[in-house]
């Protein structure tokens, strides 16, 4: 009798272990189906040693980019004093589309699926303490991008990027080339890098250049161009020199 009880106990233990293993395999397969994170030029964004208290870190290999929360976990600290508007003008070098393609770790044509509230792009997600750092480059919004076509890199169907600027409280931060009023459904050619934001948030790509797409026309820094020209530039940049 005690022998039979021992055997039954062992069987229950083995079944329990098998169920556990099966559950783990199912979970991983599900995560894999949803995409393994921001794929930018084949490399992954590494975890920072300074994790942000404002937004939890999500390693690209452990979940879908869609799981990265777009809004900050806690409302960002609003600078004291009267409402301000910060507008930054950038000076650009004369570069070709081919050079921009080369410089990017990934380039996609995609549309904005969702936009998070603005948050500080500063260490720990905290508001900068120095007046010299309260600038449009220290504010960011996380955006979920539905990828229509990957021109460079190996982006998944849906990725999360961060773009500079936004509104914190009654303070506006506007940077050349990055619309304050981003709207869902708007299409862009987006040039991205693997650089993580200063908050240390992993699994998001830096969008360092975004050109609006309207039908088959792209508005670049040099004016409007046919989308086919951008696609051709991509081909040229990949061609062996």
């Amino acid at each position, binding site marked *: 009798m005690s022998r039979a009880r021992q055997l039954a106990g062992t069987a229950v233990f083995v079944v329990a272990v098998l169920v556990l293993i099966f559950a783990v395999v199912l979970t991983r397969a599900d995560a894999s189906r949803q995409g393994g994170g921001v794929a930018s030029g084949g490399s992954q964004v590494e975890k920072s040693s300074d994790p942000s208290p404002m937004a939890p870190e999500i390693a690209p290999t452990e979940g879908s980019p869609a799981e990265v929360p777009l809004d900050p976990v806690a409302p960002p600290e609003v600078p004291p004093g*009267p*409402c*301000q*508007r*910060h*507008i*930054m*003008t*950038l*000076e*650009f*070098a*004369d*570069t070709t589309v*081919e*050079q*921009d*393609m*080369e*410089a*990017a770790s990934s380039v996609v044509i995609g549309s904005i699926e969702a936009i998070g509230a603005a948050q500080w792009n500063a260490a720990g997600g905290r508001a900068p303490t*120095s*007046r*010299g750092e309260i*600038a*449009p*480059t220290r504010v960011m919004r996380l955006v979920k991008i539905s990828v229509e076509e990957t021109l460079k890199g190996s982006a998944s169907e849906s990725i999360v990027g961060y773009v500079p600027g936004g509104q914190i409280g*009654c303070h*506006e931060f*506007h*940077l*050349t*080339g990055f619309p304050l009023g981003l709207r869902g459904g708007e299409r862009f050619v987006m*040039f991205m*890098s693997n650089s993580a934001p200063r908050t240390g948030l992993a699994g998001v790509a830096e969008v*360092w*250049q975004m050109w609006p797409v309207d039908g088959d026309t792209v508005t670049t*820094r040099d004016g409007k161009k046919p989308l086919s020209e951008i696609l051709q530039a991509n081909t040229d940049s990949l061609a062996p*020199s």
Partner: protein
Amino acid sequence: MRRRVVQLAMPLVAVAAFFAADRALAWNQLFPPGSDPNAAIPCTTFCVEWPKTSSNLSINVDVYLSSLLGQQEVDLRTDVRNTFPQWNGVAARNPHLQETTSTDNEEVWVTTDTFAYNVYAGTSHTFWTSNPDKIKAAQVFFNTGIVWNRAYDFHCQASGGPCWADARKVAMHEFGHVEALGHVPRDAAYNAVMKQGALTYHWPRGDDHNGIIAIYGAYP
């Protein structure tokens, strides 16, 4: 005979008028809010500027230079300091730039930051929304990714690698923005350091002077 002279003169008058009109637009004031601040467009509806004293004279603007500026290929503090006499020397009631070592009362903060490879620098203006056409403060950021030089070397590697830029021109241009000048188109009709990109000079030119005078008024 007189009619013939008038007929011949008319095209000449038209050409002269065309160029006169062009000259009137040879500078731009900083920008209508809501539009792209980088656009080289005339500001006609809502233009921004620094305030003046109650006596309608220049205000003093204190400029703080971060020590980070000294850590580039050239010491960018030298190039920034060299902009002060140039902009202060315009015969106008524009803000008078002066260096401060204090961060308690500075109006302009100059430092470095990391931008995309194709950005030389950025200038940010701060406005109180209750007084939206008056500049309250400014910041100038030089990109640490640029190879800074003083040889008018403006180029970028074909591989998407770093870009080179002349620190003197970029500093003078950025402080033109600080003073409230906007970009002008990059064609030969414009004689201005407020053109973007490569130039073979690095000081304010005739159109820059005219812009500052038009914005702030001539002085003396």
